[in-house]
């Protein structure tokens, strides 16, 4: 008789099996509560699935699935992390590019002039007092220069 996955055996018939088989069956007896069904004591193996071997295989398969899932999850996580890092790298690159273009545009719109006369006068302070340079200055500028020099002269 078989109910679902539970199979019942009569104890009497089980005693009729040869002694070796009986011994091996007794080893497998794991029914400490003596559960009986219609007067027959239920053997331990009746609680075990008839697909015990395949269950083990499923376990391995499940583990493989778990492992694969973990790998896939890991890959997904890696992809997400890689994407987020790439996004930050890309945004950083865009920012740098924008700054470079802004700088180029700013430089393009900036008029750079060098006051060569000022630089020369800084390097050679007496140069502005040469007669040639003084002649090119206005009389007002010459007056200022003269007045600035006069107090020191006194």
């Amino acid at each position: 008789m078989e109910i679902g996955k539970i199979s019942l055996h009569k104890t009497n018939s089980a005693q009729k099996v040869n002694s070796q088989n009986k011994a091996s069956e007794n080893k497998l007896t794991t029914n400490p509560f003596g559960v009986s069904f219609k007067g027959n004591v239920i053997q331990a193996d009746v609680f075990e699935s008839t697909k015990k071997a395949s269950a083990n295989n499923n376990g391995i398969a499940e583990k493989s699935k778990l492992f694969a899932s973990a790998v896939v999850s890991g890959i997904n996580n890696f992809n997400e992390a890689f994407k987020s890092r790439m996004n930050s790298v890309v945004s950083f690159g865009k920012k740098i590019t924008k700054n470079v273009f802004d700088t180029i545009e700013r430089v393009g719109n900036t008029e750079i002039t060098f006051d060569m006369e000022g630089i020369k006068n800084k390097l050679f302070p007496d140069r502005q007092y040469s007669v040639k340079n003084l002649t090119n200055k206005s009389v007002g500028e010459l007056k200022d220069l003269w007045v600035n020099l006069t107090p020191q002269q006194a």
Partner: protein
Amino acid sequence: MDNNKKIKNIIQALGEHKDSKDAIELLTEIGTNSPDDEIRELTAQTLIRKNTHDSLRVVLISKGKGINDLSARVAMSSINELLALKDKSEAIKILDDTIKMHSEEDVRNTARSVRALMTFSS
């Protein structure tokens, strides 16, 4: 370059300046009133070299300036510069007018002496 050298260069630049009128005014205002004999001397020489009516009037008829300067060095240097002029006509004209019309006797006497020197040198 010391300040005196710078001022000398400024005076020389004013002597060569295109804006002659303003340059003469500046030389008259600051140069001829300088406490430094050397600066006054150079200023007077520059004004005489310009050889214009306005520049010569300053050194010929102004009391204490040019040929009338209290410093013999400045006065003699101015007279030498006048004698060195190629065209003395404007200077002689101003000296003649000074001898005739100037209110200060010292100025008239100095002008007369310089006029005589210029007559002999020309």
